[in-house]
C-alpha cells in the first residue's frame, strides 16, 4: 500500500503507547491512598516498559535500519514495599496500629505525566509536518 504520509505508522503507535503510559500514571495517582486492592493488599505502583518494533519493510533486509514503531512491552508492578503509617483507627490497621500505604510519590508521577505529554506533543508535530509535506508534494506542478 502506498503510504502518503511518511512515518505515520511509527507516530500513531507512539501516540497510542504514550496514551497508555498516561493511563498508568493516572491509575497510580488515583490509587495513592488505596490500602486494599483486589488482592487485599495495598495498591502497587505500576510503570510501562517501551520496546521498539521493526516495521515491515518490503525492500529493506538490513536489520536496524528500517523505521521502527513502538509498543508497550508490558506494564510492570513496582516492587517497592508499602509505607507503614501509624493510624490505629483505620479499618486496615494491623495489631500494632500501622497501616500499609502504597509508596506512590505524587511529584514522581507528575514528572512522568509531563514527560508523556511532551512526547505526545512531539509526535503530533510529526503528523502535522507529514501532512504539510504530503500537501506540498501533491501541489508539485501546479501554478
Amino acid at each position: 500500500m502506498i503510504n502518503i504520509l511518511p512515518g505515520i505508522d511509527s507516530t500513531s503507535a507512539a501516540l497510542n503507547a504514550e496514551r497508555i503510559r498516561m493511563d498508568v500514571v493516572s491509575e497510580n495517582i488515583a490509587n495513592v491512598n488505596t490500602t486494599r486492592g483486589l488482592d487485599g493488599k495495598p495498591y502497587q505502583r505500576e510503570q510501562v516498559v517501551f520496546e521498539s518494533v521493526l516495521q515491515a519493510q518490503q525492500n529493506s533486509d538490513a536489520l536496524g535500519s528500517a523505521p521502527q514503531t513502538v509498543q508497550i512491552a508490558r506494564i510492570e508492578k513496582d516492587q517497592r514495599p508499602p509505607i507503614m503509617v501509624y493510624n490505629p483507627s483505620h479499618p486496615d490497621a494491623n495489631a500494632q496500629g500501622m497501616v500499609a500505604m502504597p509508596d506512590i510519590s505524587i511529584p514522581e508521577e507528575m514528572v512522568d505525566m509531563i514527560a508523556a505529554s511532551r512526547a505526545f506533543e512531539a509526535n503530533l508535530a510529526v503528523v502535522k509536518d507529514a501532512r504539510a509535506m504530503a500537501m506540498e508534494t501533491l501541489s508539485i506542478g501546479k501554478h
Partner: protein
Amino acid sequence: MIDALFSQPNYLAAKKMLDCTVLRHEAIASNLANVETPNYKRLDVAPSFETQLQQAITTGDPQQIASTQPELAVDTQATSGRADGNTVLLETEMMKLNQNMVEHTLETQLVSGALQKLRTAITGQI
C-alpha cells in the same frame, strides 16, 4: 526523445533530494516514537547517499543520478548522554524535523519550477 525532457541533472537531483527528505521524515518519526525506548539507536539517512549524489551531479550523467538511492542507517555519530542507552535527543530531533520540512518545501519548489519552465517552453505562455 520525450525522456530527454525529464532528464536534466538539476531536475533529477531535486527529485532524489525529495526522496531523501521523505525518507528522513520517516526516520525522525521513528526516532520520536522511540524517544523513551531503552537502547534505541537513532536512525537517519545514510551519509553515503549525500556523497554519492554529489559525485553523480559532478559527472552530470542522468543515469548515474537516477541510480543513487537514499537508505536509512543507524546514526553512529549520535552519542547518548542518557542512562538507558537511547541516543535520541528530543530537541535535536525537533530541530531536524523543522529543517527537513523547510528542505522539503525548497525541493518541491525546485521540482515545480523545473516543470513550470518546461511548460513555458512548450506553450510559450507564462
